[in-house]
């Protein structure tokens, strides 16, 4: 698993997302509730638009969430599962801060199609 540098940690706005381009793939990175970090696919599976980074973050029960800005489906940021339709899921990526730099790594699911 290889971590790719994204940006300085300070570039992440609190309780919002940013989009990043990693190996040609769009990733949405969120900083929520102080210092929790999440990274998921930027593709909204319901609209097909690359917009998940622009969703509103929050929580449902204990789960950290992001809502699609298009049709408002809510996703669990930790697992990527859509809480309004569990048959749909966002890909989830590993994210960490290393030496003040946010880094993302793709989990080892089949990338090639």
């Amino acid at each position: 698993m290889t971590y790719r540098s994204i940006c300085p940690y300070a570039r992440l706005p609190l309780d919002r997302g940013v989009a990043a381009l990693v190996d040609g793939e769009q990733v949405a990175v969120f900083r929520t509730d102080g210092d929790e970090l999440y990274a998921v696919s930027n593709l909204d599976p319901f609209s097909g638009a690359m917009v998940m980074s622009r969703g509103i973050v929050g929580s449902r029960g204990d789960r950290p969430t992001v809502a699609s800005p298009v049709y408002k489906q809510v996703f669990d940021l930790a697992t990527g599962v859509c809480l309004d339709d569990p048959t749909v899921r966002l890909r989830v990526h590993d994210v960490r801060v290393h030496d003040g730099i946010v880094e993302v790594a793709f989990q080892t699911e089949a990338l090639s199609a």
Partner: protein
Amino acid sequence: MRKTLVVVGHGMVGHRLVELAVERGLTAEWDVVVHAAESVPAYDRVGLSSWFRGTTSAELSLVPEGFFDAPELDLRLGDPVVAVDVDARTVTSAAGTVTPYDALVLATGSTAFVPPVPGATGPGRLVYRTLDDLEQIAAAAAGKRAGAVVGGGLLGLEAADALRSLGLETTVVEFAPRLMPVQVDEAGGQALRRLVEGLGVRVRTSASTQAVEETGDRLRMVFAEGEPLEVDLVVFSAGIRPDDALARAAGLMTAERGGVLVDEACRASAPDVYAVGECASAAGRCWGLVAPGYDQAAVVVDRLLGGASSFEGADLSTKLKLMGIDVASFGDAHAETAGALELVWADPVAGDYRKLVVSDDTRTLLGGILVGDASAYPLLRPMCGTEIAGNPADLVLPAREGQPAGIGAAALPASAQVCSCRDVSKAEICSAVAQGGCRDVAGVKACTGAGTVCGSCVGLVQDLVRSELDAMGVSLSTALCEHFDLSRAEMFEVVRVKGIRTWSELLAEHGRGRGCDICKPTAASVFASVFNDHVLGGDKGSLQDTNDHMLANLQKDGTYSVVPRIPGGEVTPEHLIVIGEVARDFGLYTKITGGQRIDLFGARVEQLPLVWQRLVDAGMESGHAYGKSLRTVKSCVGSTWCRYGVQDSTTLAIELELRYRGLRSPHKVKMGVSGCARECAEARSKDVGIIATENGWNLYVGGNGGFRPRHADLFLSDVDTETLVRITDRILMLYVFTADRLQRTAPWIEGMEGGLEHLRAVVVDDTLGLCAELDAAMARHVETYRDEWAETLADPEKLARFTSFVNAPEVPDPSIAFVPERGQIRPARPDEKPLVAGPVLPIRELRSVRA
């Protein structure tokens, strides 16, 4: 020893069978091998036409990512079964694998029927059945002008919709004297025809296609009567034929009119062989709908588990939305029951047709047809066969003004089936609420499955939940969401009285959790209404929905549209030129809005500040098209130019628009000012409408266009401009203070105890002593208004959000693609886009797994 179930065919019914095998535990002892002829897993064939409107094949897929990863499931895509040996109990696939089975289910579906006329096959002649067919249709339609669909039934109209959305001049050719002859009667067919023609699709009924001739690079359709028709392509959608070739070759019995003959257990004429779905002839016929196929799948799984359920026919009721037109037919729609009576209500102008079939004593509902407005279908279908309480005419007449619709969920018998897809009765839903503890639709969906398939019963489920909670004495919570027990109005009061200015303070003192997409934008709106601070200031940026966050309107492809304010619709040539130059320089699609301004589409996030810098430099400001706030004050030219105008409507409209611009409110607010009673500004369809009189102005409130149109009610007559503005100030501010989240003024007033009279008492007679406060609040708003785009451009921190990629701000989003149309851009449809890199499409992952 594990047993093997082989399923031949992975369509909707084949996949349902696999799902049921997993859900009901059959896979504890059985392995399931599925052979699919198509190269993609099961998809929603019913929703096929949405592919042309941009729904991707991935979105149509019925198979959740990872579903077939289970070791007991094996999906073999693109590898159809070519032979069945019922003696050796094996199947042989095209790839040459031989698989022994303990049970075999044929779910091969059907093929499109192409009438045997000369020239029915060849280039430009297509069918409409599979995703592959759609791709071929899209390819054949590229650059072409006209297309015809042979068949005016359900699939034919879907195919016509597809051709229409591909930009072709489309003609539907139907052999019968009307469209959808199976589902609707003559009058219903006429209503449907008017609606279809209203969409620009030509209709030829009683047309028997005799031949399709090639004329150069076009096609000429020749009919038994009438003029021939020149087109570029012909799509045959004239019915389906069961795909029973495999069964015939295996020596299984088939029905006279085709289809694998099966008994009530869906068993074919060889041991342990079953057939389900459109390839089967069950209970005397082939069933061309998905619901009976699902029932058959359930019967087979039950039998394999040792059960004794049986398939004895199905309800052929259907409700469809074809080209946006509702068509429903249920029960004995053609009044074939002896002595049956028909109750018909028709509005030929609106294209609304409703027919109910009742028993000869008018007591029992037998069936019906709805065309145009099928909203009563979910309620009527379950009432079929039951006694009607009250006058049956109430069931078919539209709701009259001032009266609620004649029927409600309470009228349904307990045994009535509410959700036909999942077979859930009213009693089950009520008990999920009463005993199961469900408190909302989402809970009932999760608990009973009702409303989870086609969704047409969700409104009815909602009514049932409400009436059941009422009956239990449980009052519906006004809490915004799980994070706040406050209603929007209560949150407004708390913020205003306590002077809470930040989200963190509000959440800490009155909420819990981290908030969500309901409470955060509500809080942001309340902060803006009360303090009129910048919507992106402090921690408020994190609360805003993407529209308010980007100060622009998100469109379906992830780009935004930009609307500069054009007060009262009055615009100088200089401003028009700047708007035109900006649109040209940034390549934006330009369209005039209904609110008399100009919308510029297709701007990427990183372009928004550049676009706005130009507009602001030219003296323009935000139009707040993205906000829940005042949109426009539409006007006519009034007495200044018009021969009939009696007051200066344009000046008043501009004055009002500049006064209320930027006022954040529970929902959007639209206004209009007409200079005379001819009402050219359509003011009575607005939240606040003003119509000039000889003596001054008439003020109307609570109008609404859109989904639930409503004319505004007269509130004041013949008042002067000062009174008009004062009262409008108070109405708007009271609305901001007290309305619910996303509640327009019409339901706000309707929901007030005392209604319009109460509103008048509060804002005119000041019976609550609120007016001074409302006046002060509006004065503060007017005084503190600033253009939020100009302020954003001046603040580097606020500008940081307008970045495509945090690690590659110079790279525009590569997923955004446009194609030219009528001299401008439009978003590329999925089939027009180069495949965007990304591993997220479940279909492609499955392919790679099984390759």
